[in-house]
């Protein structure tokens, strides 16, 4: 039988780790990009601020006009970013450009109150200018001359090329080791799982190399996590071994049981061949008796096999125990002895959830036993159905010799008859017990008042979820 294919442990682990690392790396990349941009801006903003400051230092007023003496260093220092373009502008209180690029993007102080912020140092902002993204610094200086008052602004800008390169370097520096670690971790996982699963593979090889009858426990050393599985396999093999043992014993016993009536059949047939008519009739009667014994044994074996098989599958349904009892009598009791069985029930119907076949077999065997061992008496076999608090009790009573208390444990085993020594296959009560246990009930043997044996089946109602 093919097992349904599932993902390998390695694929699962590697997949999960891979996903984890992937998302981790993406999150990190986003964070690193943000950080890289911030860090690059921070370092280059200082240059930009220095440049704006050095220009602001040269502001002077001459003939009511603002004069700017652009220092060489102001723009030259920005060539620390060698490939970036540089823009500047100085504009006055009336927003007219004093010198520099007239069309630079404006930075407007958000509110009048914020103009005071100019004291705190330059403001920075990004804007598109002449086809490139440009970072600007704006610095304010307040002028308070008798005929000229207000703010003069120095604006210096630089394209972002060097910044972006630096940011990229920072990101790469941060992410590269993580990607490397990820790949290493994946390699370790792949390798580690192969190593960790090696014992399991060894166990598999050990098991597949074995002869079918070899049920010794697996002794391969395995990691602690796998030990329960191996313990379970060993436990299963132990039970399997026991089960096979008992099956062998059963087959041996069954063969033995069948041999005896067969041997006497042959002997009687042999005797009858040479005997006279009277002897032949006796022999035939003996043959008929032995054949009946054999037939009963085979019935019981079949019944046992049925019950064994049914024990493995659950076929519980709503049944009526009264009907079931009548059915069992109909099927299991020969026509001539129908009168020897008497049924008494408090109700006409006894609804119950259970396996009709199992219970039917159990009842047939019980009634058969009762007829066989107690049927000689005048009194018929009494089958009683009684409703009790948690279910039903079915009692089958006869006037036979009964079973001594000392034997009552043993008689439930297969082929173990009571010490009374009456011949019988000894399967009947084992079948009964198996069927009743399957329903969560129990079998009790009792002395019948006034002599004989009473077998009481206690069948509790099934409680929902109380599966056994």
């Amino acid at each position, binding site marked *: 039988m093919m097992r349904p294919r599932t993902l390998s442990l390695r694929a699962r682990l590697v997949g999960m780790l891979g996903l984890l690392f992937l998302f981790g790396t993406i999150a990190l990349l986003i964070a690193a990009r943000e950080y890289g941009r911030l860090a690059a801006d921070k370092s280059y903003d200082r240059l930009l601020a220095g440049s704006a400051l050095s220009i602001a230092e040269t502001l002077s007023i001459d003939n009511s006009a603002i004069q700017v003496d652009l220092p060489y260093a102001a723009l030259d220092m920005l060539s620390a970013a060698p490939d970036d373009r*540089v823009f500047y502008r100085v504009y006055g209180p009336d927003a007219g450009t004093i010198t520099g690029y007239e069309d630079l993007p404006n930075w407007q102080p958000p509110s009048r109150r914020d103009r005071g912020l100019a004291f705190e140092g330059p403001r920075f902002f990004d804007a598109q200018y002449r086809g490139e993204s440009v970072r600007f610094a704006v610095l304010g200086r307040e002028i308070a001359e008798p005929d000229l008052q207000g703010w003069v602004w120095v604006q210096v800008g630089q394209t972002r090329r060097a910044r972006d390169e630096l940011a990229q370097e920072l990101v790469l520096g941060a992410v590269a080791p993580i990607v490397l670690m990820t790949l290493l971790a994946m390699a370790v996982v792949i390798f580690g799982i192969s190593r960790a699963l090696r014992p399991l593979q060894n166990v598999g090889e050990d098991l597949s190399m074995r002869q079918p009858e070899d049920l010794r426990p697996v002794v391969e050393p395995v990691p602690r996590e796998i030990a329960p599985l191996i313990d379970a396999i060993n436990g299963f093999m132990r039970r399997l071994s026991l089960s096979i043992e008992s099956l062998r014993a059963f087959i041996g016993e069954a063969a033995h049981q069948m041999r005896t009536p067969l041997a006497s059949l042959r002997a009687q047939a042999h005797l009858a061949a040479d005997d006279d008519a009277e002897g032949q009739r006796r022999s035939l009667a003996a043959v008929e008796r032995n054949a009946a014994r054999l037939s009963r044994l085979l019935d019981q074996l079949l019944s046992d096999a049925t019950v064994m098989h049914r024990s493995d599958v659950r076929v519980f349904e709503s049944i009526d125990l009264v009907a079931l009892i009548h059915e069992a009598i109909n099927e299991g009791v020969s026509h001539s002895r129908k009168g020897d069985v008497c049924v008494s029930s408090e109700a006409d119907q006894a609804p119950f959830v259970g396996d009709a076949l199992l219970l039917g077999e159990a009842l047939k065997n019980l009634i058969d036993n009762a007829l066989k061992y107690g049927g000689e008496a005048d009194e018929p076999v009494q089958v009683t159905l009684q409703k009790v608090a948690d279910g039903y009790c079915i009692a089958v009573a006869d006037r036979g010799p009964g079973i001594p208390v000392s034997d009552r444990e043993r008689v439930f085993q297969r082929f173990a008859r009571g010490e009374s020594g009456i011949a019988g296959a000894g399967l009947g009560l084992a079948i009964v017990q198996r069927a009743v246990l399957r329903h969560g009930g129990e079998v009790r043997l009792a002395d019948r008042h006034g002599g004989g044996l009473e077998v009481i089946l206690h069948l509790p109602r099934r409680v929902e979820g109380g599966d056994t």
Partner: protein
Amino acid sequence: MRGAWLVSVAWMTAMAWVDASAEIYPAVGARTSLLTIYSTTDTSVFEAAIRDFQKSNPSIAIQYEELEGTVLYRRFLGELARGTPKADLLLSSAMDLQAKLVNDGYAATHDSPSARTLPAWARWRDQAFGFTFEPAVMVFNVDAFVGRALPQTRAELIDLLRRESLTWRGRVGTYDIANSSVGYLLASQDARQSSEFGALIETMGDSHVRVERRTGALLDLLEKGELAIGYNLLGSYAQTRVASGAPLAIVYPRDYTLVVTRTAVLPASAPNLEAAHRLLDYLLSIRGQRTLADEGGLPAIRNEAAGRQSQRRILDAAVGPLRPVVLGPGLLVYLDAQKKRRFLDSWFGAVDQ
């Protein structure tokens, strides 16, 4: 046939536009495209390089327009603003104006193995490329200095002009920095580098310094003996004169010698960008560098192109430190309107006394 007719009409239209300063170099082979160069370099100096380039690119006709640096800059921007860009390649010794074109986003990016060999100071953003190595030198008329030692530093020059102010009055020359963009570049770099520059300008002013727009004009005057001292001239032109026997002496100022480089910029708006890339690559190649040095007298910036005019020979000749002007955003400072006005005011204030 129809295609050829159209091409000839286009050709005549182009011809009609060309002004007097333009030189046309027809394609050697069947012409397929026209490459227009705006350049500050004398046509005669550059001609050899163009002819050599056309040997390996016979299908390209070249229109070479010689313009002063500021004129070149304004004309390029003006044509662009009118929506009729014509220039495919801008070659200018005004490094600051070229840097500004790059900074303001007008340049196309060029990358080639040759371009990558350039020193860092002669290359910016893969958009501006210096293709010559030209120290700014002092040039003297040797006849005027018979029996006198040539000043080797700015301090010595100041000293000389002060001591014998009457002798040299009217015989000192330099660029008219209001009209010569390379003159302005050199003067502004001097102002930045030297604490003596103010004193030098004042002294030259006292000596009634004569200013000229073009290097050639100054060298003519020096050669004729009308001028005895030329300050901050491009060494390459002077070297050519010396080589042809002019009575001139070249001194690399020992306190420091500025080095500028003719800078190439490919306009992003170039109608024939592909040919411009090719010519730029040629100019930066060893073959191009050697041709410029040997035939045009423009010292090569690449050391591999050793020749009559090479960086190595200049390094050997110069005793003092060489200070290359770095292509980069710093050059924008002296182009600032206020800064430029103030600088010109103080310069001419000192000179026109």
